[in-house]
């Protein structure tokens, strides 16, 4: 009940807050929502499935490039472009999943990184198609094919908000479903799950593709938001940033990574206005979080008030020492109160 009220209040707050913001601040808030989605998508595989990926920007970038290229060069129709962006991200994730999920832990991290770097290389080098380093400027906000235009900042904010709320609700159900429970079981002990009769590969693969689609969705939203796409969207910096968003917020919770995404976007904005050392600051944040709050903000909060003990558990099989242990979940799959 308390949670439901909190969620309703949060959604209402997000719906009303634009009226108190300048157009610059509204743009920043839109960006925060988009990256919150991006972070939640990685959390599905990292936090719930225990599958670390350092190439999650691949799906974000593929979605963004697909929308950008279609809108600029082929047809400026929202439904076609947006749909194609999602499909392209799904296909990429389906392909990469086949290759990457043969490995675990640090090896999985390396393979996902390598695969994403391949796409980055293509975007960087194939100038006539992608514009190379210059990227593709001038992607218009969606208006064609829609009942009303999303060109204005406010209209686009509400569009992103609706998508954000819908996807969050869907992910909320997924992580609490039998599928989500099985994913958590695989994170905790894949071997145990296998001998219990679970086809663990199928679960990991499905989660990997689903996470790719949601990442692609956030890429779609971002290219419309920015009106621009460049190889940076596929870069390791982007992949590492989203990883830090998840870890900062608290992997294995749904809200934590969303919060982490919003905070990083906000910080980047603040820090970048005074120094060019944003990446250094990001690195310091990562070190501080892993040292002092390895379960992230949500884990820290839960640990303060939660009924369960320290989140400082010894790492379980398949986890990287660099990926902090997950918080005691009061938030995620609660299967009490039947």
């Amino acid at each position, binding site marked *: 009940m308390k949670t439901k009220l909190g969620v309703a209040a949060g959604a209402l707050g997000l719906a009303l807050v634009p009226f108190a913001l300048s157009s610059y601040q509204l743009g920043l808030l839109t960006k925060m929502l988009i990256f919150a989605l991006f972070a939640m998508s990685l959390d599905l595989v990292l936090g719930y499935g225990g599958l670390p990926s350092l190439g999650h920007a691949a799906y974000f970038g593929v979605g963004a490039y697909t929308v950008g290229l279609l809108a600029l060069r082929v047809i400026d129709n929202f439904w076609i472009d947006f749909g194609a962006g999602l499909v392209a991200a799904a296909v990429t994730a389906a392909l990469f999943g086949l290759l990457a999920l043969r490995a675990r832990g640090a090896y999985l991290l390396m393979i996902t990184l390598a695969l994403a770097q391949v796409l980055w290389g293509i975007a960087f080098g194939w100038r006539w198609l992608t514009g190379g380093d210059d990227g593709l400027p001038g992607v218009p906000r969606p208006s064609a094919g829609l009942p009303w235009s999303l060109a204005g900042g406010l209209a686009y904010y509400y569009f992103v908000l609706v998508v954000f709320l819908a996807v969050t609700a869907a992910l909320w159900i997924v992580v609490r*479903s039998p599928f989500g*429970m099985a994913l958590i079981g695989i994170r905790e002990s894949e071997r145990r799950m296998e*001998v*219990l*009769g679970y*086809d663990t590969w199928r679960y990991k693969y499905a989660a990997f593709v689903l996470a790719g689609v949601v990442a692609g969705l956030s890429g779609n939203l971002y290219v419309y938001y920015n009106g621009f796409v460049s190889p940076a969207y596929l870069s390791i910096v982007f992949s590492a940033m989203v990883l830090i968003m998840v870890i900062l917020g608290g992997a294995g919770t749904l809200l934590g990574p969303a919060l982490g995404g919003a905070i990083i976007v906000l910080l980047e904005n603040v820090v970048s206005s005074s120094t060019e050392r944003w990446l250094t600051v990001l690195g310091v944040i990562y070190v501080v979080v892993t040292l002092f709050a390895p379960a992230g903000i949500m884990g820290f909060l839960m640990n303060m008030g939660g009924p369960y003990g320290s989140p400082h558990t010894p790492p379980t099989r398949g986890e990287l020492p660099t990926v902090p242990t997950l918080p*005691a979940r009061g938030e995620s799959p609660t*299967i009490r109160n039947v």
Partner: protein
Amino acid sequence: MSALAVQELTHDFGGLRALDGVTFEVAEGERLVILGPNGAGKTTLFNVITGLLTPASGRITLFGRDVTRLATHRRARLGLGRTFQVTTLFPRLTVLESVLLAVQGSDSARFTLHRPITGFPRLYARAEQLLADWSLTERRHVRTRELSYGEQRQLELLLALAAEPRVLLLDEPTAGLSPAETASVAEMIRRFPRDVTILLIEHDMDVALALAERLIVLHYGRVVAAGPRDEIKGDPRVAEIYLGVEES
């Protein structure tokens, strides 16, 4: 028809022959204890039977069906369950959550992703029933990593049982337990449904002899003795392997 049959099973770790032509059958509902010193190949045998390792040669049949090349989870779905020598549980999940996962593994709901698990009361009903049957109801909201070692061993048995196996492989369920805990785990195994076929690796001879109907003895990957309990009990080769009697 035998519940489980292995024929000429061989497995190598590099140059080491861990299993060397192992052949035996287990009848449905039978309780078979596998004895043998450390390194005899007992756990390797379980790993090969459950599909975690692929044998170099040989055949495994489960209720007449050849499962030698089947994936681990497929064998589990056919009714093959097991526990591990080293506790293999879900450390950060509660007892109830763990049992739910075990129950869900053999339920059609296990791939559902558009409905919360709370929408499947039958899973909860079965999990709660199992917890009640095995006196773990009071501990159901305790996280696995916070259970005592003895309780963890019990939970491991319960998870294996929750999957409704027809053949159950138990790998040293009493390893590292106090005498009192050993007794309660042995009692738990004794109370398992009679129609479940059980293969048990056990070093505690009291437990082994109390539960076994038949025993086989492994030594350097070979079956060196097999037979009914009382026959094996008096077999000089068993004493020799366990006590290291010198050949004269």
